[in-house]
């Protein structure tokens, strides 16, 4: 049975991506941080410290499970073993939310540990929807699907990304995870208006917002090429885009992602506090 209200279970408050080095501080005083997100694949061992810490945290915080390895956008079938592992994790942890990416990462049974892009065509739409149906049936709940960071385009694409995500949501009933930093990165790289993207996005389907830091590079023509690195603070224009989004969507759970060069807890908590301030400005 799909739980239509699943996306409402995370509080419309700041959360952070959980890193084991912050365990002691989080359990002592999490400050502005009201919920935690974990990467599903890091908690698929049989036992030991990772599972014990997660059990402990889940008794104190709402937990969002964020998958990075299912390869929903893959041309091949979903990995049955991996579906079974996700089902097991979701069933014992009973998280507040489960999300995955509009991307692929596995081809020909090799996993590339990155979120790879796909064309937005009728054929890929159909395949993704059938994968999401299969996942939602397997885990017995509704998922959120996240928009990617784009560095390039596919000549064969016939859908815009917001329309594509909206259509997936309409067909499968899945919710959406809106990564505002990804919107900013893609908009810079592909020279479109980030506000225009937000305007076109089905915000009523958004169950969670992501924020993170990015790196700056250049393409072959010297134009800015932003890279979604999750390795630093969220930049001011992305905070401004969050304000723009929240003003239109109303309050939502907002997550700070910081996965590389992970800072000390106070630095991460300060980012969450900034998200709390942004949320306070939004009328409920």
């Amino acid at each position, binding site marked *: 049975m799909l739980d239509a209200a699943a996306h409402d279970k995370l509080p419309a408050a700041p959360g952070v991506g959980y890193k084991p080095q912050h365990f002691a501080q989080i359990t002592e005083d999490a400050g502005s941080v009201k919920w935690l997100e974990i990467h599903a694949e890091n908690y698929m061992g049989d036992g030991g410290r990772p599972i014990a810490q997660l059990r402990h945290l889940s008794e104190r915080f709402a937990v969002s499970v964020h998958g990075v*390895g299912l390869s929903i956008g893959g041309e091949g079938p979903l990995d049955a073993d991996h579906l079974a592992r996700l089902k097991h994790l979701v069933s014992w942890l009973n998280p507040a939310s489960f999300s995955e990416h509009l991307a692929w990462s596995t081809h020909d049974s090799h996993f*590339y540990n*990155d979120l790879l892009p796909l064309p937005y065509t009728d054929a890929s739409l159909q395949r993704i929807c059938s994968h999401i149906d299969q996942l939602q049936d397997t885990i017995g709940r509704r998922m959120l699907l996240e928009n990617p960071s784009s560095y390039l385009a596919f000549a064969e694409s016939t859908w815009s990304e917001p329309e594509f995500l909206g259509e997936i949501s309409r067909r499968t009933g899945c919710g959406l995870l809106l990564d505002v930093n990804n919107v900013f990165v893609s908009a810079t790289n592909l020279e*479109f208006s980030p506000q225009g993207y937000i305007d076109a996005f089905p915000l009523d389907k958004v169950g969670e917002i992501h924020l993170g830091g990015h790196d700056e590079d250049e393409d072959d023509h010297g134009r800015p090429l932003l890279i979604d690195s999750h390795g630093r603070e969220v930049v001011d224009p992305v905070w401004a885009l969050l304000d723009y989004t929240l003003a239109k969507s109303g309050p939502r759970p907002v997550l700070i992602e910081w996965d590389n060069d992970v800072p000390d807890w106070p630095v991460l908590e300060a980012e969450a506090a900034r998200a709390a301030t942004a949320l306070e400005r939004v009328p409920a």
Partner: protein
Amino acid sequence: MSVTQADFTRAMMDAGQAVPDGLTDHLAQPAGRRFSVYRNNVAVSLTEAMHSAFPVIAKLLGKQNMDGLAGIYLRQHPPSSPLMMFYGAHFPEFLEGMEQLKHLGYLGDTARLELALRRAYHAADAAPIAPEALGALTPDALMNTRLALAPAVQVLRSPWPVHGLWRYNTEDGAPKPEPQAQDVLITRPEFDPIPQVLPPGGAVWIRALMGGAAIGEALEQAAAEDETFDLGATLALLLQGGAITGLDSKG
């Protein structure tokens, strides 16, 4: 103009291949450098995964050599599952197969030890028995008892001083390893796996137990390998490591 995922991965894993037609920038020009983001992300993330999986190998070889080996390894053996915690299972044989590393014969077993420590870290939890449960048995009953061992328990046999090498490279002030064969037992009393050197015959005894032999039967096998085998000392290592999770004394 359709770019398949086979086309994409082939070009991503081999920088000598052209960027597939049909990947563009927003002005419909070839993607060029933009595609390199994916080439980079994959190589960097898998190289980092190898560094964190094999810190002792990385230390022995130095960062630059480790980066180079990881770059070759990740193309020969891309991960076969999204569980990155278990990535690198073929690394010991890979190291042993590298002609340039033939003079460093101990690398393979050192990598095996690092793999075993990682498996132990993620192994299922299991509650140990109280040591008194063994003490309560008559000597005859003890010899006929089978032991269930915790899933974290691992035994590694090496012609190299593999424990000494590991310790020397992970522990400040640890002694320099002497050339000798070492058998290593890994237990996980709480959450951190602990590798220890096994006394002579200990590895044979524990492996026999893992294979379902009773204590006495395993003892005969261990004594056949080394007549100085010390049952008490080896049993104590298992008990101290919380490694015995069940007794079966029937028969």
